């Protein structure tokens, strides 16, 4: 496969064509650091050295609140209506590996005992253009979760930074291949023309995942959990900004006395009501138990069930936590306990 490169300028022209073809283009606009719907190709920014955004882009595939169906009572029967489907294909541009790799991870749970069409329809018709990452701070730990700043998992097309505002382009999936063929005129074939931009610092391995997993397998009742999450306030900031958290609640909402909708909303295991039973019993009735659940789900249960770590090491949860509860430090503490025993 020949090496292709593209200038940032030409890439923005592709984006403009995508917009003209009525795709929903998601990217980071110049001057901001959050994923938004891009309406002008020129306003898109491609900065591999930027920090991860505050929130992930999972909301475009799994929205914070979406209708499952609408209902209207009609004398003795009920009419059901499907939500209007957004037929636009989604193209995400400039996704860091810690974001892009999350989609195939959560796709497994959305296709487990029930095929979630609300997610699948959006994911199957999407194109993810990933970009290698040149950022590092104390909260990043992608390498420890079997990822890396150059990880192509989850991307259909992958961009690597070159000098002179150029990018090396690689097709990772058949979808990516078709994309490159379609816009072939914008790419240049001179793969060696510009040198790759070197990463300033490597991301180290912060913990040994296998050791952490084994410890989690055997230490459900360990006194470590009495204090690991005791400062947690029980909000859902971490779960909602996380690219891999996927729990949801289903509610019925009335619009008038005989009309309404059934909706699927983001939910979080850190909420006190998450496991409250109709009987009134709550098996996770304090924050310490709920925090144990969060760590165990991410680093043990999901691996047991789907053979994936439910964490990509992006560090958003720790950066945004109101009480600075750092998931990396908790897992490092577990690693230390694992090494002692």
């Amino acid at each position, binding site marked *: 496969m020949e090496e292709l490169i593209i200038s940032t300028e030409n890439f923005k022209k592709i984006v403009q064509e995508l917009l003209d073809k009525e795709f929903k283009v998601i990217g980071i606009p110049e001057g901001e650091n959050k994923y938004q719907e891009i309406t002008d190709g020129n306003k898109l920014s491609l900065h591999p050295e930027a920090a991860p955004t505050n929130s992930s882009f999972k909301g475009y595939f799994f929205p914070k609140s979406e209708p499952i169906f*609408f209902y209207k009572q009609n004398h003795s*029967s*009920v009419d*059901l209506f499907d939500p209007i489907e957004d037929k636009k294909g989604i193209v995400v541009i400039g996704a860091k590996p810690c974001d892009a790799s999350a989609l195939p991870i959560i796709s497994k749970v959305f296709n487990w005992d029930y095929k979630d069409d609300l997610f699948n329809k959006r994911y199957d018709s999407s194109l993810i253009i990933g970009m290698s990452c040149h950022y590092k701070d104390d909260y990043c730990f992608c390498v420890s979760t079997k990822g890396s700043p150059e990880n192509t998992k989850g991307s259909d097309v992958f961009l690597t930074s070159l000098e002179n505002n150029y990018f090396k382009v690689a097709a990772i999936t058949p979808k990516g291949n078709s994309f490159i063929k379609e816009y072939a005129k914008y790419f240049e074939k001179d793969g060696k023309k510009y040198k790759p931009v070197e990463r300033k610092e490597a991301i180290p391995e912060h913990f040994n995942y296998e050791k952490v997993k084994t410890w989690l397998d055997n230490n459900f009742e360990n006194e470590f959990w009495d204090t690991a999450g005791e400062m947690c306030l029980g909000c859902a900031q971490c779960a909602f900004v996380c690219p891999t958290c996927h729990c949801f609640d289903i509610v019925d909402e009335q619009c008038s006395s005989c009309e309404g909708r059934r909706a699927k909303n983001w939910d979080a295991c850190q909420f006190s009501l998450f496991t409250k039973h109709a009987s009134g019993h709550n098996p996770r009735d304090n924050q310490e138990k709920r925090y144990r659940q969060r760590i165990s789900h991410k680093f043990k249960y999901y691996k047991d069930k789907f053979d994936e770590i439910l964490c990509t090491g992006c560090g958003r949860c720790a950066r945004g936590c109101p009480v600075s509860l750092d998931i990396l430090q908790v897992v490092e503490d577990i690693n230390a306990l694992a090494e002692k025993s």
Partner: protein
Amino acid sequence: MEEKFEPKIVAFVCNWCTYTGADLAGTSRLKQEANARLIRVPCTGRIDPVFVIKAFESGADGVLISGCHPGDCHYNAGNFHARRRWTMFKNLLEFVGIDSTRLQFSWVSASEGKKWVSIVDGVIDSVRAKGPFTQYKKMNKAIEIPVQTGEGVSAK
């Protein structure tokens, strides 16, 4: 012919004074406009501001809250507590963008049938002049059945 806008008013009224006053207006056959839907509560002290929000969510164009005069509360001090709450809530709603025409307050005693009529008509007229509360109704959009091109599916 275009239908003229008729405002929907929700009135939270206390059982002992205003509701009885409204009843007196009825038995006296006083003429009044019919736009107000009354919700009877034991005392204005029972009224949680979330009721007002719910009324707007459900399609009200205006809300009226009415109770016993200060000193006459059947439960002694319910309306005093309510009065303080309303000052805070009214200011909050104004700051957030809900015009004070849309949330009005009054004291109407059990014998003030005529006053009730003039209060209610006044509220209805002022809200009619303000127009429908489309800004709030737009907030309901996500919950409403979207305009469909096909038929819905009937389910028994």
